[in-house]
């Protein structure tokens, strides 16, 4: 009984929290006049839904594909580069570790909009702007890596050391024990951090906008800004576009939540 009461409360909280999301859908269905109407209509009165027009008219398939390429690339690179470092920083202690941790955190310090200019200059010299999606992946990885390392470090710090020792005795090298014992046991943290990195990179805007000049390689969030002109801002279009953009990801994450988020409680280590 109590569990269902909790469910009810949970739905209430989630509903309240997701209200802005609902507002996005509602706005997507309203015409310009209804958008500014007062009192605002909670349910669109004259819903109209031009998904197809926005989806194809705005080249969304290609934009979404490019976003996916960037997000997958960044996430893969971050996981490959950062997991080991997070592990070492979560295990060892000492002045060197402190210094490293400090350094890593500091690398997160500047907003993309500021680092993009020097990176742009550097990438241009290195000829990377010829492969703009790769350039964006490299830049965004630098942005996400410290974040990922700091988050995963906390998870690795919670993995009991004697489990790794048992693995060493069972015949693993330290490297293998890291892969087969430490990583699975820290998977909650790794997974959540990776999901956050993925989503962040999927929505990356600043680097893509500056480094990708070919519209065919451009990403979805940049495509979104096409609705904002010097004298116009097509809110209806923006909301429709972003509803198309958000919905599938949201559905995927809700479907995968068993593996991604709900696994959190199942995986108690000790």
């Amino acid at each position, binding site marked *: 009984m109590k569990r269902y009461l909790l469910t009810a409360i949970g739905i209430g909280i989630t509903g309240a929290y997701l209200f*802005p999301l609902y*507002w996005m859908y509602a706005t997507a269905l309203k015409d310009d006049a209804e958008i500014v109407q007062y009192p605002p209509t*909670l349910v669109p009165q004259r819903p109209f839904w031009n998904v197809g027009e926005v989806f194809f008219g705005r080249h969304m398939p290609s934009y979404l594909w490019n976003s996916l390429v960037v997000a997958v690339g960044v996430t893969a690179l971050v996981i490959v580069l950062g997991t080991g470092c997070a592990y070492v920083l979560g295990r060892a202690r000492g002045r060197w570790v402190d210094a490293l941790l400090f350094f890593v955190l500091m690398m997160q310090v500047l907003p993309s909009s500021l680092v993009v200019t020097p990176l742009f200059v550097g990438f241009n010299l290195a000829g990377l702007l010829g492969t703009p999606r790769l350039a964006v992946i490299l830049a965004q990885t630098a942005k996400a890596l410290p974040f990922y390392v700091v988050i995963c470090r906390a998870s690795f710090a919670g993995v009991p050391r004697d489990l790794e020792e048992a693995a060493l005795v069972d015949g693993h090298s330290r490297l293998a024990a890291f892969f087969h014992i430490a990583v699975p046991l820290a998977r909650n943290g790794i997974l*959540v951090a990776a999901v956050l990195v993925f989503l962040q990179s999927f929505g990356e805007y600043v680097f893509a906008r500056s480094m990708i000049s070919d519209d065919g390689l451009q990403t979805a969030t940049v495509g979104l800004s096409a609705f904002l002109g010097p004298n116009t801002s097509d809110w209806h279009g923006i909301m429709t576009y972003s509803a198309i953009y958000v919905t599938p990801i949201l559905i995927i994450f809700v479907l995968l939540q068993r593996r991604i988020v709900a696994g959190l409680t199942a995986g108690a280590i000790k």
Partner: protein
Amino acid sequence: MRLSVFDTFRDGRGLDALLVLLTLVYLIVFGLAPILYTVLMSLQQVDMFTLGDFSRPFVGFANYVDVLTRPEAGMVARHTLVFVALSVACQLVLGFALALFFQQDFPGAGIMRGLFLAAWIMPGLVVGGIWRWMLAGDNGVVNSLLAVTHLHPTKIFWMSDPATSLYAVTIANIWLGIPFNMLLLSVGLAAIPKDLYEAAQLDGAGPVERFRSITLPMMRATLGALVSLSVIFTLQQFDLFAGMTQGGPSNSSNVAQFWSWQLSFQTYDIAGGSTIAVLMIAVVIGVATLYVRSTRHEQIG
């Protein structure tokens, strides 16, 4: 017998070095370089058009003097402090409360927790836009709900009243930061051994006491990471200012990062923008130091 070169990377110190270097080298190339470049620019006379050539005149700390003596400097610093402190504190408290709530075992807890990711998926531009509509003074749904529920019958001009504009952005930012906090805290909570709570219960600890003396200290690693990252993220929040108030009215909601952006990209004063960024780095150095110190008291498995 010493380990062979190959073995040291599998079993010895070499492994640690290798794993760390992967990240380190990458960050030095792609992370440190732009930061140093920014510091350099803050000491030079630069604008949009001299970005590319390096033979720019050095001006010492003239940019710092210039930025710090501008009439809005003090105000912006104050707003930044309020914005960061309020955002981080509320995100943490609300995120923690939600993590604890969804930690309980009830039908649908997982799905609902997944839905909270929505805020992280939505593009910043859209979030700014949505909150702008919702907090609009005349036709915003928030005012309408406040009126319907008689909580505040008169309209609040959230974004155009200098008294509330900063808080309007802060509210939106708190909304944006909740899932990040909630998810990571959930991970941390799940890793706490249950038997500690049991022992504490038998020792006579009530829920509050258990939270204080078991949950909090055991979450130290997570909390340290979370708070420091939250501070940094909040210091980089840009879309909401661009989407909601443009830092206005008359700088009443302007914060350092937006100001830095305005200088760099609206008035093409790259030196000024870089200078503010460097001043912000100083703040983050403090945060990072606190974080590193906090890790010394962590529980390492």
